[in-house]
């Protein structure tokens, strides 16, 4: 039975759409995973000597002191990222297969999850170092096994607490408070938790306690799942209560308003687009890295333009970049409804412009860093409006990957961003304004540099109709290919 289930799992993994992505993504992901593994390994080997060098005391005790935060972070990460094992159970429910088998298998799957064994990269080398430093073998073994059990306890807590946002919020709030009060020396929770971790080392036999906890959590997770294995209980998809919204004030913009209303709802009601817009919002603060001189490499004059583009272009880059794809799930409707292509593109353009203007206002706090800083932001905004808004729409014509609005998967580092044509188009978005500025900067003065970039933006803005006719043509040419591509679900 387990062999069959395993077989299914194997196929679902290797045949999943995301697995069959391009070789480049795999290489990128591989490098990313390797990077984290190396960091963890380095920490595992290095932290002992680091603590010793700093003279903070017995490295093991120091690690024990902060272990509670480590575990709390782990739980937080799991809550946000670790997927629940309930998916794909549905087709198995009515088959002649014991429910307990299915549940065992699903929970077993979480045991071998990356979120569990990744800790080994840190704890195994750390334990090895401890042994070479003449810490007692049995003691280290007890401590190590105890920690493994706690990691697994976290695993099952996460399974049990999954999707209970309030539980998570309370938990996160408590730990944020504890961390703060520790930092300000009001109250130190580690004084109460460290002895427990110390005990695992001092009395190795006590490692049985976390194992008992982990086992108890496993059993309760098992029971919980088994009892909730019904379509209307544990397997039910969460449905948000819908309310009809009235955005009539946008009606004054005519047809444009109709689309804007829709786009606002799109952003508000879908996980994926919400994440993108929030990411875009944080771009506003990206300039702090440049203007505060926090990073020396960014002190050069061109970097100011670079920062200006990013500060005001957050929405443009995070949302605008994927423009037709947001509508991918109902693209045939958009293409056969009473909508002229021009209007559709126009509405997206206005959305980007409005967001850019809002970002520019929000970014007024850069005045604090001098007029030059805010001038860079303003110039960046003008360039974004005049040039980049077109480039983003133009690039969108070549993006043919549908977006699944309801899932947050791939919100970070989508394979779409690696489309060769969109990559090429992103060069003029960032490099061109820097080059233009450099010309003005070196031939005359920084002010002339700013003026040149702004003039380019204004010029672009003036030719809006021309450019739009061009973009419209490209979209029309790509229409059928896009429709066909969107038909294949992501």
């Amino acid at each position, binding site marked *: 039975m387990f062999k069959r289930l395993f077989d299914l799992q194997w196929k679902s993994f290797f045949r999943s759409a995301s697995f069959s992505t391009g070789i480049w993504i795999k290489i990128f992901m591989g490098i990313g995973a390797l990077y984290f593994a190396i960091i963890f390994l380095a920490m595992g080997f290095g932290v002992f000597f680091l603590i010793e060098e700093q003279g903070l005391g017995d490295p093991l005790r120091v690690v024990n002191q902060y272990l509670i935060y480590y575990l709390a972070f782990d739980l937080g990460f799991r809550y946000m990222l670790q997927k629940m094992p309930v998916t794909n159970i549905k087709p198995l429910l009515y088959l002649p297969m014991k429910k307990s088998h299915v549940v065992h298998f699903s929970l077993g799957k979480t045991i071998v999850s990356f979120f569990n064994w990744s800790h080994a990269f840190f704890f195994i080398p750390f334990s090895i170092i401890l042994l070479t430093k003449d810490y007692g073998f049995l003691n280290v073994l007890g401590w190590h096994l105890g920690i493994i059990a706690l990691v697994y306890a976290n695993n099952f807590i996460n399974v049990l607490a999954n999707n209970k946002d309030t539980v998570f919020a309370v938990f996160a709030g408590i730990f944020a408070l504890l961390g703060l009060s520790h930092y300000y020396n009001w109250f130190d929770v580690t004084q109460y938790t460290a002895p427990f971790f110390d005990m695992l080392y001092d009395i190795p036999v006590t490692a049985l306690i976390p194992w008992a906890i982990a086992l108890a959590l496993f059993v309760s997770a098992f029971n919980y799942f088994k009892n909730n294995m019904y379509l209307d209980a544990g397997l039910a998809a969460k449905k948000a209560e*819908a309310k*009809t919204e009235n955005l009539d004030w946008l009606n004054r913009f005519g047809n444009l308003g109709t689309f804007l209303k829709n786009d606002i709802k799109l952003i508000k009601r879908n996980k994926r687009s919400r994440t993108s817009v929030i990411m875009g919002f944080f771009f506003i603060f990206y300039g702090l890295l440049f203007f505060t001189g926090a990073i020396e490499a960014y002190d050069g004059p061109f970097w100011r333009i670079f920062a200006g583009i990013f500060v005001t272009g957050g929405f443009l880059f995070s949302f605008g970049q994927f423009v037709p794809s947001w509508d991918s*799930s*109902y693209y*045939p409707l958009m*293409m*056969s409804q*009473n*909508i002229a292509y021009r209007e559709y593109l126009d509405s997206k353009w206005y959305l980007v412009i409005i967001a850019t203007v809002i970002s520019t206002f929000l970014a007024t706090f850069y005045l604090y860093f001098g007029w030059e800083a805010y001038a860079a932001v303003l110039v960046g905004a003008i360039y974004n409006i005049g040039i980049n808004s077109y480039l983003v729409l133009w690039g969108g014509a070549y993006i043919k990957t549908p977006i699944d609005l309801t899932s947050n998967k791939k919100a970070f580092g989508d394979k779409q961003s690696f489309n060769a044509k969109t990559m090429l188009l992103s060069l003029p978005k960032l490099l061109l304004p820097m080059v233009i500025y450099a010309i003005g900067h070196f031939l005359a003065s920084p002010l002339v540099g700013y003026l040149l970039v702004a003039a380019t933006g204004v010029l672009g803005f003036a030719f809006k109709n021309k450019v739009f006719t061009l973009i419209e043509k490209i979209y029309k040419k790509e229409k059928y290919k896009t429709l066909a591509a969107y038909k294949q679900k992501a």
Partner: protein
Amino acid sequence: MISTSNLSKTYGQQTVLHIEELTIPKGQSFGLVGNNGAGKTTLFSLLLDLIQPTTGHIENNGVRVDQSEDWKPFTAAFIDETFLIGYLTPEEYFYFIGELRGRNKADVNALLAQFQDFFHGEILGQKKYLRDLSKGNQKKVGIVASFIGNPEVVILDEPFANLDPTTQIRLKGIIKELAQKEGVTVLVSSHDLLHVTDVCERIVVLNKGEIVKDIQTSAQTLKELEAFFAGEEQLSAIQQE
């Protein structure tokens, strides 16, 4: 109203649709039947300019659909769930379509009021997004949305599938009325021979991309169609042996 000439669609080696000539006059209720893969959806997608013909073209009220967008104001369709916007409530969706077709909320509400029966109290005011409605209810929304704004051509792909019997009967009434009283050209495809013969004045049978029958509906039509499809089944059974 609609005329095609030398229309064909080919994917690689495979020709999925080949129609020499087809003319559908204004106000006709036109039925399209055929087995899976006969080319029904392909024909409808061509009509809506969602795919490009390999040869030939379609004219909708004198507008070549692959060259101009001017057919859009008077043509409405519901093909599948890709015509629905999942994150809107049914009301918002109707108003959205209404605005695109130059109808304000009052107009849309007046139209919706006529479909109270059809909705059976399961669509309006349900506090649900379209994506959370059942397949049948989604279909009802899509079909009714295609009636908004007095279109002259309405294209419905498999409108009867997934609907409950009561709704099927009501839908038949609605389609008949549209064609007879309001002069709307209605194009319907279906696997259900009984429904199509009930609703349509004219039935075209597609088989492997070609028109094999073009019938003005009469009392004998259902028998004729049944004989055709049963015969084909037997024929292929013999061929397999």
